């Protein structure tokens, strides 16, 4: 390796390390804050490692708010929404990618435009529709909203993945006598697996973090999701109960981290699966 190449590689690693530190800083600071007693939170010279670590923030967070139930609600809403979104979006994306005509172009245009709508513009009509369907204060109503909200982008993502699958593979399957459905299920879908998983991750994270729809649509504490519950640690003029908020926020990140860890293997595995026709 030449000196120039070595120095380029070193610079790349340095940039990567800097980026990782940048990404990790808020999370590590969150963990540190979650274990600090109130007096350390007000210190002019904060430390990374709490001098007098405590679990009081976690105790207080659990005492004051129904975190476990809220996490369960968030999990139901986010998992359901991501599953339904990919189940609907995958065949739609296939059609849009493989059959380019006016309808698919119009659909693509709609997908792009729909991303520009601000929440406040759609929330009131949406609220009225869900009210007429008796789906206010219902996780089912919230899941429907999340599916509709994540569907356009999910569709857009998957269209790109479908286009990356060589059409020749489908032609080969057709030569072998496979029907359109069989071709999609047996040839295209396995190759799309990484894309489907990535799309599901996107839909899951969108729903897991979503606050405003959940705030407006869910009335009773039994139904409310984690972001709504976390917001209760914030008072007037942005004053926050920082310790318990950090503890609860740290706990709230764990399920999505676990799901990411599991799914990451699937993405890698999916990339290697089914690409070679025997």
């Amino acid at each position: 390796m030449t000196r120039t190449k070595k120095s380029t590689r070193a610079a790349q690693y340095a940039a990567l390390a800097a980026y990782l530190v940048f990404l990790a800083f808020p999370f590590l600071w969150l963990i540190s804050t979650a274990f600090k007693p109130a007096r350390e939170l007000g210190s002019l010279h904060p430390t990374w490692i709490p001098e007098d670590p405590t679990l009081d923030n976690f105790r207080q967070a659990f005492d004051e708010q129904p975190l476990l139930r809220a996490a369960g609600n968030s999990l139901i809403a986010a998992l359901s929404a991501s599953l339904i979104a990919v189940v609907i979006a995958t065949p739609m994306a296939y059609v849009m990618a493989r059959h380019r005509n006016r309808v698919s172009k119009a659909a693509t245009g709609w997908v792009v435009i729909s991303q520009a709508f601000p929440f406040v513009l759609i929330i009131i009509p949406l609220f009225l529709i869900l009210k007429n369907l008796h789906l206010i204060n219902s996780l089912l109503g919230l899941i429907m909203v999340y599916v509709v909200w994540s569907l356009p982008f999910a569709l857009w993502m998957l269209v790109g993945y479908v286009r990356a699958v060589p059409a020749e593979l489908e032609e080969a399957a057709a030569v072998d006598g496979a029907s359109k459905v069989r071709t999609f299920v047996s040839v295209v879908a396995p190759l799309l697996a990484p894309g489907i998983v990535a799309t599901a991750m996107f839909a899951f994270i969108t729903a897991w973090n979503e606050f405003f729809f959940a705030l407006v649509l869910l009335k009773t504490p039994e139904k409310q999701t984690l972001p709504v519950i976390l917001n209760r640690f914030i008072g007037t003029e942005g004053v926050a109960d920082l310790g318990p908020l950090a503890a609860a926020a740290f706990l709230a990140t764990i399920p999505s981290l676990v799901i990411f860890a599991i799914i990451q293997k699937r993405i890698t595995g999916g990339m290697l699966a089914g690409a070679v026709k025997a």
Partner: protein
Amino acid sequence: MRTSRRRRPTPRLLTAAGAALALLLTGCSGDSGDDDGKITLQFQSLAWQKESVDANKALVDEWNATHPDVKVNYVQGSWDSVHDQLLTSFEGGEAPDIIHDASDDLADFAYGGYLADIGDLLPERLTSDIPERSWETATFGGKVYGVPFLQEPRVLIANATWLKKSGVRIPTPEKPWSWAEFRSVTKELGDGKDGKYGVAWPLKEPVSATLNLSLSTGGKMFHRGADGKVDVRFDAADQIMPRTVHDQVNGDGSASGTTLGMGGSDTLPGFFGGKYAMVPLGFSYRQQIVQQAPKGFDWQVLPAPAGADGLAQGVSPQTLSVSEDSPHKKEAAAFIDFFLQPDNMVKLARGDWMLPTGAEALKDPALRTEKDDWAVGTALAEHLRPAPAQSVRGYPEWKDKVATPAFQEYYSGAIGLDELRKRLVDDGNLVLARYQR
């Protein structure tokens, strides 16, 4: 090869679809509500600190135990998002019956027809207990849209050891500092040369702090004419407080320039660390100070500086309102009456570390104790007035687009007083004019 392809995706797809269906069919249905003929009221509270939530819930439980025919459901809201959440609920016809909010948020809802006029539903006990100046904060067009019940003055929270050591006169509600004396004291306490300052102004949101504190010098800024239209002026009385801050930061060096962009909580580490002798904060910040101050840190509450109008300052009290759509307004008003009995107001005030509006509650010894300087705040209660801008239509836009950047630039020294006046008045009146055609 074909066989293996057929097997792989299908079971996964079926499992996923089955799981999704199962999730949808279990535990996702909406509320059925009460069918027993009893009246049920939804009470959305914004209480968020543990003591406050506990006090709210205990009062709701007490009501439910003594009023079997009118059940109150406690619903938790949050300050951070209450306006959008309520607006959506009003539009969708799903608003709570009893609504907790702040008086400066009520004008839009009152003018929009979302809140009930509860003036005739409240008992004499309650209406006469709360002073007229507090009722003004929730009265629009002669109609009462909320009951103001908790409020907090802005006070100076001081490092007591530092103050005593410096030998400056310690102000009291009876003998507060004038604005000029305040400036000279802060110069004496610290000029920033050794990293120590006499005061730290947390002015991330400079407009309400400036308007509310300027009432002490007779500043009004908003003037309503005989035709009901409001115009902005920036007279000599309006300039005293802003000039003091500007000169402390840019002339004397007695106020830290870095805290101008901070919120109140952000200044506390520096205060505890001995960088600032005083921080102007809301009265309820005492709770954070009690929780976070290092052991042995001696602090005390001082009244804000006074001007020609004494200790007057503007506040936007917390309020309880009734939704116009509520079919049980009378019962909702009865609950508010119960909730705001003097003893209960004291519990709520202590839970939020704020002051009650009610005269009877203010007499309670628990709010006149020297501990945590409750007595200093209670002595300020009679000087609190409605925040000058809260009934002015167009104020939010004036604040965000004109006044906030103008004050931020003035306090940091980027512009002078003439430019500040030009922006507040000339640009400001153009904004207000659009709301008053």
